């Protein structure tokens, strides 16, 4: 991991000394290591390769959703609509696909199309109509949830085709050591590599950081702010669609499949050291953030803590992560 993956778009922050380099390693990996160590201490079977694969598989939807959310947050905005979009995708896939495997080839593009539309609307309402994204995406969340409910009457119909579910449910079997390599893990590796290249290695990625670092500075240096932010919203929505397909595969049809994913994704991104308000964030750390969040959930589960405590822990984590990020930002000036 190199520093330019982690820090801001301001190029003058280069030439880091050794200490700085060390400090810029996101602490999330340390937290993850501790969480995994405790899990393995409580349940040694967790360390076996098939268990670890199963763990990665269940992280996959959140990972993919969080990577999309990262683009929006780095560009200085929020996307609260991804959970509702995920639910809508699962319900739509079941209703129009109706369990027919021959329809899957057009169901997936349809869902991606829905994602593009939602992302465009979020982006354009935020950038052109200048509605704060918090409000704009809160609105689209309510619209999507309401529309899904209206359309299904509260009880989803249809079924998810087996071949659509395969991506989230099964994998390449018969492998040595790990046993099964879930498709979901492959998908998230591809998405993570793609997101890393896009955010940290392309001109577009630099523009996302620039917009999040300061709209005025970005505009003055020739960045097309509205286009960049809209593209970030579209990427977020597309990631949510992919996450929804993974989730549908894993867990099946449910009328609140994606509920809460927007907050989990934002938690993940914040845990990974991104700054709400933009300009800072890293895909690699986000992967660490998602793994950590899931590991902590697993941990709370192993200790038998109920859901309210899980929520409390998540809340405390957000605050702690935010405080640490702010502290680090102050230290590094």
């Amino acid at each position, binding site marked *: 991991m190199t520093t330019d993956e982690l820090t801001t778009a301001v190029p003058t922050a280069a030439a880091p000394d050794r200490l700085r380099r060390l400090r810029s390693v996101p602490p999330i990996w340390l937290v993850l290591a501790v969480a995994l160590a405790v899990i393995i201490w409580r349940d040694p079977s967790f360390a076996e390769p098939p268990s670890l694969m199963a763990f990665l598989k269940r992280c996959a939807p959140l990972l993919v959703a969080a990577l999309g959310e990262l683009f929006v947050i780095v560009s200085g905005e929020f996307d609260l609509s991804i959970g509702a979009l995920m639910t809508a995708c699962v319900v739509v896939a079941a209703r129009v696909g109706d369990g027919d495997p021959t329809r899957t080839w057009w169901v997936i593009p349809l869902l991606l199309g829905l994602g593009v539309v939602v992302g465009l609307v979020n982006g354009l309402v935020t950038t052109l109509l200048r509605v704060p994204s918090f409000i704009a995406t809160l609105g689209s969340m309510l619209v999507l949830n309401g529309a899904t409910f209206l359309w299904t009457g509260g009880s989803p119909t249809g079924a998810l085709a087996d071949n659509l579910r395969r991506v989230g449910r099964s994998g390449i079997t018969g492998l040595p050591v790990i046993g099964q390599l879930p498709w979901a893990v492959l998908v998230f590796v591809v998405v993570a590599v793609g997101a890393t290249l896009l955010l940290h290695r392309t001109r577009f990625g630099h523009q996302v950081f620039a917009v999040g670092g300061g709209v005025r500075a970005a505009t003055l240096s020739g960045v097309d702010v509205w286009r960049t932010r809209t593209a970030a919203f579209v990427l977020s929505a597309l990631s949510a669609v992919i996450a929804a397909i993974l989730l549908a595969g894993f*867990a099946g049809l449910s009328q609140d499949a994606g509920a809460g994913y927007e907050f989990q994704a934002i938690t993940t991104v914040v845990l990974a050291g991104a700054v709400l308000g933009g300009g800072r964030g890293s895909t690699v750390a986000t992967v660490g953030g998602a793994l950590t969040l899931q590991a902590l959930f697993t941990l709370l589960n192993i200790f038998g803590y109920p859901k309210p405590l899980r929520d409390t822990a998540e809340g405390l984590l957000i605050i702690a992560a935010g405080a640490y990020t702010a502290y680090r930002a102050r230290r590094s000036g």
Partner: protein
Amino acid sequence: MPRRATAVVAVLAAMTLAAGACSSTKPTGGGTASGAPSSAAPVSQTKFFNQADFDRQMAQRTIAPQGDPSTPWLQMIQPTMVDTSKYAKPGKKWHLCFSNAGLSNPWRVNGMTTMKAEVKLHPEISDFTVVDAESKDDKQISDLADLQTKNCDALIVAPNTTDALTPAVDRACQAGLPVVVFDRGVTTNCPVTFVHPIGGYAFGAADAEFIAQQVGRGGKVLALRILPGVDVLENRWAGAKVVFDKAGVNVVGVEFNNADPAKAKNIVSDYLQRFPDLKGVWLDAGFASIATVEAFQDAGKPPPALTGEDEQDFLELWKKDKLNAIASTYPTYQWRTAVIAATDILSGKQVPKEWVLPQPVITSDTLDQWLVPGMPPLFYSGCGCQKMPGFPKDWGGK
């Protein structure tokens, strides 16, 4: 002493959770009201375990209900009939009002559809006003107040939570309206009748007896629950626990899935890793039954002995994969019974003070009678609606 056990369908918990962040009041345990402990209780009395209620429900399971078995929504168990002549309004068109807790889950959607169909069967009902409280106690309290100005002839209430709605139901009674309560109860005696299936203890125990018999003494069983603190779900587990303890079943874990199928699947997968010889899974609601089966299948193992409910998707999987399963039901036909009770009252016919409906249990032998082909995945076949006009289309079927 009539007791007002709240009767919450399990799937409701999904809604409680989903709406948890914004709902005004949490369901509280108000169910274990009266009744002294009868026998030497092997299980201590707790907030969620009342020995007398448990004994009564266990007994009611074996009592043949009065009435025609082909119309279970008209049957009643151990009824104490009350006179309703003072509410009779013969020869008049009736305005029926219904305050619904919400349509927050497929069970309730299914029930509402069934109820509307039942209303259509009564030409003497000229108006049917439905207000939806959207799972909020405060909304339902004001809904009940509003309905008192609407010239209703009878009021049906499906309370959102027991304790919060009791005073509001009391006020509706004082206005002189005949009140019918169904599903979850209230802790006041004032409604003319309270319609509900036998109850949570019987539900949990019937399922647990099957599981215990399948896994044998010492067999490993996972109890997968939705969430803690909801009284009827607590009652189901309390009932099951008595049975498991007595049968010497090794309950290796009691987990909460928070109405999240992904989480349910994760929990079962984790337990399979830790206990490869896990033989049975007891669930407090059919909600996570499919996720449970899939967790076993994805781990390359045959599905365990497990419990479910009368949702279409589970029944279909049961038949397709020849599952070793049982399904206590919390039938949606009680939505029909509530309307029938209201019309009986307005006709001056006697109704039971507590209208206890049978609570059928689906087994592999009776599965085919319950499975209606062509229905949507979250159709509840315990609706008693199969012969109603508009079936199957109005219920989403083909």
